[in-house]
């Protein structure tokens, strides 16, 4: 069972990898370590934990899922949470881990897929349409998004109301705030949309107060209702138990109601006992012992007296 759980956790982690952005025609864009420009494929780790992409496969051919295996043993294949890794589609795998053994077609459409380390489980795939423009990338509208994310966003965020496609083009020459972003977020966040939303629609905080207090009350009302019922059941049970023993309910539970004074006296007595050393705890005393031996190592002083009956 544990092995199954561990396996599913691993699977869950690699399945959080997403093909995030692709640049098919790279003329003057991002340059690799060799000072050359090539098409690139960006993979995004959408999970809150690190994921090692080593052992997974990248392919441009569905009939050959094991086209390029990401080599193992390179620490750079460990992708931190919500971070990216970039592969150069230059057909020069001898240049290192991130240079894959195929390239992208600048005229036709390109199919790109990411398979898990078993070579059978498809993690993600995308078909980049034909007719790509130079230095314009094709990417997800927001890092790692799926259609589900888009639909959820459309419910709450006005900026996504009219968006229909999950993938879009990123062009540095358009002034739409969407730029080619190799190894970084597709959407550059310069504000927190949630906070902006509150600033625009709830300037005085009344909406927040009503909503949040509603939730706080609801949470505690739910607890109240649950424990009201549980309490009723407990009381009924104790009544039944008392009836069967022939005692009153209070007697059966051992809790005959006492006056407040009695409780106060008990509380005071406990206080007196537990706070006994309040006054003298900072006073160090050395008293001379009349006995000849040293009490330092005497067990008699370290043992408690046996209580007398």
């Amino acid at each position, binding site marked *: 069972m544990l092995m199954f759980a561990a396996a599913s956790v691993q699977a869950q982690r690699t399945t959080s990898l997403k093909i995030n952005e692709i640049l098919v025609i790279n003329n003057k864009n991002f340059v690799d370590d060799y000072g050359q420009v090539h098409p690139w494929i960006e993979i995004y780790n959408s999970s809150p934990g690190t994921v090692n992409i080593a052992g997974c496969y990248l392919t441009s051919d569905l009939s050959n899922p094991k086209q390029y295996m990401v080599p193992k043993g390179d620490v750079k294949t460990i992708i931190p949470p919500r971070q990216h890794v970039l592969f150069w589609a230059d057909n020069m795998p001898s240049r290192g881990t991130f240079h894959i053994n195929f390239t992208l077609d600048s005229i036709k459409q390109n199919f790109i897929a990411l398979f898990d380390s078993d070579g059978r489980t498809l993690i993600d795939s995308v078909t980049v349409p034909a007719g790509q423009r130079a230095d314009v990338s094709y990417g997800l509208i927001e890092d790692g998004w799926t259609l589900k994310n888009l639909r959820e966003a459309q419910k709450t965020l006005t900026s996504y109301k009219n968006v229909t496609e999950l993938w879009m083009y990123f062009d540095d020459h358009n002034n739409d705030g969407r730029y080619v972003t190799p190894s970084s977020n597709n959407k550059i966040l310069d504000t927190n949309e949630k*906070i902006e939303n509150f600033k625009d629609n709830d300037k005085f905080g009344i909406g927040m107060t009503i909503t949040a207090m509603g939730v706080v009350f609801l949470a505690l009302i739910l607890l109240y209702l*649950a424990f009201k019922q549980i*309490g009723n059941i407990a009381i009924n049970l104790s009544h039944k138990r008392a009836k069967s023993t022939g005692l009153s309910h209070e007697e059966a539970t051992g809790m005959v*109601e006492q006056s407040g004074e009695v409780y106060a006296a008990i509380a005071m007595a406990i206080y007196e006992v537990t706070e006994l050393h309040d006054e003298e705890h900072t006073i160090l005393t050395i008293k001379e012992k009349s006995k000849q031996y040293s009490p330092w190592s005497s067990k008699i002083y370290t043992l408690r007296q046996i209580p007398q009956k």
Partner: protein
Amino acid sequence: MDFLQFLGDNLQTFLTYTSFANITLGHVVMILVGLVFIYLAIAKEFEPMLLIPIGFGILIGNIPFKDAGLQLGIYEQGSVLNILYQGVTSGWYPPLIFLGIGAMTDFSALISNPKLMLIGAAAQFGIFGAYVIALSMGFEPNQAGAIGIIGGADGPTAIFLSSKLAPNLMGAIAISAYSYMALVPVIQPPIMRLLTNKKDRLIRMKSPRVVSQTEKIMFPIFGLLLTCFLVPSGLPLLGMLFFGNLLKESGVTRRLAETARGPLIDTITILLGITVGASTQATQFLTWDSVKIFGLGALSFVIATAAGVLFVKFFNVFLKQGNKINPLIGNAGVSAVPDSARISQILGLEYDSSNYLLMHAMGPNVAGVIGSAVAAGVLLGFLG
């Protein structure tokens, strides 16, 4: 002669490293604040477990030194204080404190009279009252949320939320929250007197019924499921609170419960207190925003207390004679456990020397802990 010159230069260099050469008025002010905290803790016994570490932390944090890359200050990455401070900045001290609180809290009063939970909810108006005022003073919604949580009267919750929503204000928020928690005996009684009449104060409440161990065990389980399904963002605090309580009530994990409510919470309290105190370096802390936060903190406590008392009076309208609640326990809805409940007891005895409200007040008091953690979860969900 050269050697004397060398010694002189060395001495001069050394002097530039001393605090005397680097002290500013801000440091002096903060050191005085630290001394006041220590005085209040020792002489007045105001929350000594918190004010001693925080007060001494303020002294540590405000020893001026030359910024020479020696990794001394709390804000210098890799310094000892910085490493200890990470429990605050990454928010894992507060949930551990909540674990201890859960392991030491007896929810019997609440379970026996569950309607008292609603008082714990009403007192959270303090948070949102302060939120509204903070917005009007020009704070951003996330900052206002972090400031508002001071009204929850719960230090760990305030630190947890501010570390997520407004880390730059965390020092001021934490100091403000703990200061006002210590000042509960000063802040609350006048408001309670003002909002109640003699008849209210003399209301006697029914003794709480005996709660079975089964009910006590069910409380943390149901509590977790019901509150966290509703507000998953409150999970770190509520999860640990209820887990700690289950350790206590299960009866089979005594050692774990004792560790959680003893050595563990003590250790974390020491680390939390000293680092929060040390985070108040004058250069970072003494700003106009900090002054505003202190003002807002006081207001939030006033609003929370008033909301709790007024809610009880309103609630009483719907309750039958004999089931009515003494409004003097309304203040205990703020989660300063057990200080605010103790205030209810003291004031209750002032007006009727045989009316003991402590056990009744503990109900809303612990409900306040849950309520403020839920409120923090809501704020984090909306603004995080």
